[in-house]
């Protein structure tokens, strides 16, 4: 139990914060219901994938500045391929785009390993490259998407045996998120590859000496990041129905949520659950600020303050813990 609390304490705290926020939301807007929760889940989707992409590389001791640009590129690719195409064609586009994300992510990793240029610089350069590529694919927002893909994240899933009242609180978007992340993350976390990712983030030298193939693991970590970013790009296209070549605000948001989620920038520590919960917290804060009709300029200040305050609080606890 103490092991669990020591390791998951931060995530538990975040969950508590999330619940407090939900209660606050229902106080602000008593009519807040399952539909609104569905909206939240859909808003979370692209951020959650961006954060997952960032989390994997941060755990591996790196950082990926190209996450948002990767999402833009995969999004425009999907949108331009599916534009005017048949519904079935999307079945081919999806894996293609995911594979593209995986390959471009691997390219990130490969460049870091081969050139030995620090990851932050390689991914910064890749940010420009991917952005440029996105502009070559579509020079203005546009494209289209299969209807069934749009329907995949809207509405709820009727689960037999569950009362409708409960069903209504299970938006498809949330299920898609859970399924996509779990299918990749849970087996990974338990595998030797997963351990290797933590190992190279924790201590590269020790990992090397423990027989971990450091370079290969790093490349795979970036490839996974690219894969998650491609999911994020698809999520963008699924929710908007188009592809936009200009990256959205996902880079900074992903870094912020990773840190809020208890993953140390520096590597080796944390998991995926914390950052995902952090994304929910950040999105719900935005909802509350809108519901409260707060001056929009003040909302920027509040979001910044929350970020700084929570992280300072975390730092403060760790300091107390150390003494």
């Amino acid at each position, binding site marked *: 139990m103490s092991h669990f609390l020591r390791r998951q304490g931060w995530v538990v705290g975040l969950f508590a914060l999330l619940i407090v926020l939900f209660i606050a939301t229902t106080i602000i*807007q008593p*009519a*807040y219901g399952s539909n*609104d929760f569905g*909206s939240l889940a*859909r*808003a979370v989707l*692209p951020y959650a994938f961006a954060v997952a992409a960032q989390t994997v590389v941060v755990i591996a001791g790196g950082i990926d500045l190209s996450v948002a640009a990767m999402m833009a590129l995969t999004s425009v690719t999907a949108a331009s391929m599916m534009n005017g195409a048949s519904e079935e064609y999307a079945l081919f586009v999806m894996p293609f785009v995911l594979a593209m994300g995986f390959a471009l992510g691997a390219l990130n990793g490969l460049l870091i390993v081969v050139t030995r240029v620090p990851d932050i610089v390689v991914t910064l350069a890749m940010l420009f490259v991917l952005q440029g590529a*996105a*502009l070559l694919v*579509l*020079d*203005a*927002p*546009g494209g289209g998407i299969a209807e069934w893909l*749009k329907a995949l994240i*809207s509405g709820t899933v009727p689960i037999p045996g569950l009362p409708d009242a409960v069903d209504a609180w299970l938006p498809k978007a949330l299920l898609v998120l859970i399924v996509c992340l779990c299918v990749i993350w849970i087996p990974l976390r338990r595998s030797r590859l997963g351990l290797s990712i933590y190992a190279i983030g924790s201590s590269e030298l020790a990992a090397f000496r423990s027989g971990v193939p450091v370079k290969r693991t790093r490349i795979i970590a970036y490839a996974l990041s690219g894969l998650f970013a491609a999911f994020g790009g698809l*999520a*963008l296209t699924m*929710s*908007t*129905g*188009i592809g*936009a*070549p*200009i*990256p*959205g*605000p996902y880079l900074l948001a992903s870094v912020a949520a990773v840190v809020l989620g208890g993953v140390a920038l520096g590597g080796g520590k944390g998991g995926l659950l914390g950052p995902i919960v952090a994304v929910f917290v950040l*999105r719900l804060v*935005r*909802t509350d600020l*809108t*519901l409260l*009709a707060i*001056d*929009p*300029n003040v*909302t*920027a200040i509040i979001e910044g303050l929350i970020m700084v305050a929570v992280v300072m609080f975390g730092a403060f606890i760790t300091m107390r813990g150390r003494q």
Partner: protein
Amino acid sequence: EGKYTIGISNTVQGNGWREEMVCAMKAQALASGEVAKLNIAHRNTDAAGQLEDIRNLISAKVDAIVVNPADPAGIKAGLEEATKAGIVVVAVDQAVTEPSAYIISNNQEQYAYLGAKWLFQQMGGKGEVFYMRGAAGASADSDRDKGFKKALAENPGVKVAQEVFTGWQQDQAKQQILSFLSTGTPFNGIWTSGIDNVIVDALVESQAPLVPIVGADNAGFVGQLSSVKGLVGAAVTNPGSIGGAGVTLALQILDGKKPAQQTVLVDPQLWDNATDEGKAKLKAAADPSLSPEWPVSISIPEWTTYTKEQIVACKGPGE
């Protein structure tokens, strides 16, 4: 005394034009006396983020949503949900593809066409033009590009000497024009997408020939058109006050006065300093007290009722 709550969604923050638009919305809401509360979502984000904001506004149970779309097609789903929830939706500045939404918009294609046509006339229908676009990949930019290309097609003698994207950023634009000037490439005119006063500054600073130049009706540029000696140019109006017009339209619909068409286009005007008529318009419009990035056309007759003090104060109902 107001009875309505109006939600506003905008996705570019810190840009003079957009700030004026939001202030016009606030001022109009206050001046109309019909609005109890404004609920503003105003931040830098993309279409997906705007969907989130629109849905939050739906959760907040507003009566109408006035939106400057990040993308015409990208927020269709959100707007549809809003209409279903009984909310009046008005898009300003750019069109949207959602059929149930009302649109009151500056005509971006016409904006570019009007200015470029005038410019090419000034150049005598031939020569080289320096083409300074906005942000690559933005829908307003690609609409304007269509208008520019149309004028270009009508003037086969005019060639594009160089095409650059300023990203609607002053510093980038200035560096680009200075680099361009230093190459010594001959050019006979400049068409720039809304970033204009720094371009004139750059020409003056580097003592380059003052070729004809077309920009927007930003306060700084309008002032330059009357004050800089030897400068021939024209400002094409692209009023940020369209935001106020959007609020008016929304209120009209809420009051049951539906407009004849779903789409209302506000056509741009061109004020040049080559004709006396244009000069008079420029003089009337010039307003040195405004921030140079703000468009001078701070009101649209028939659509806005606030005073200059009100829009400059930038205060909505209850503030």
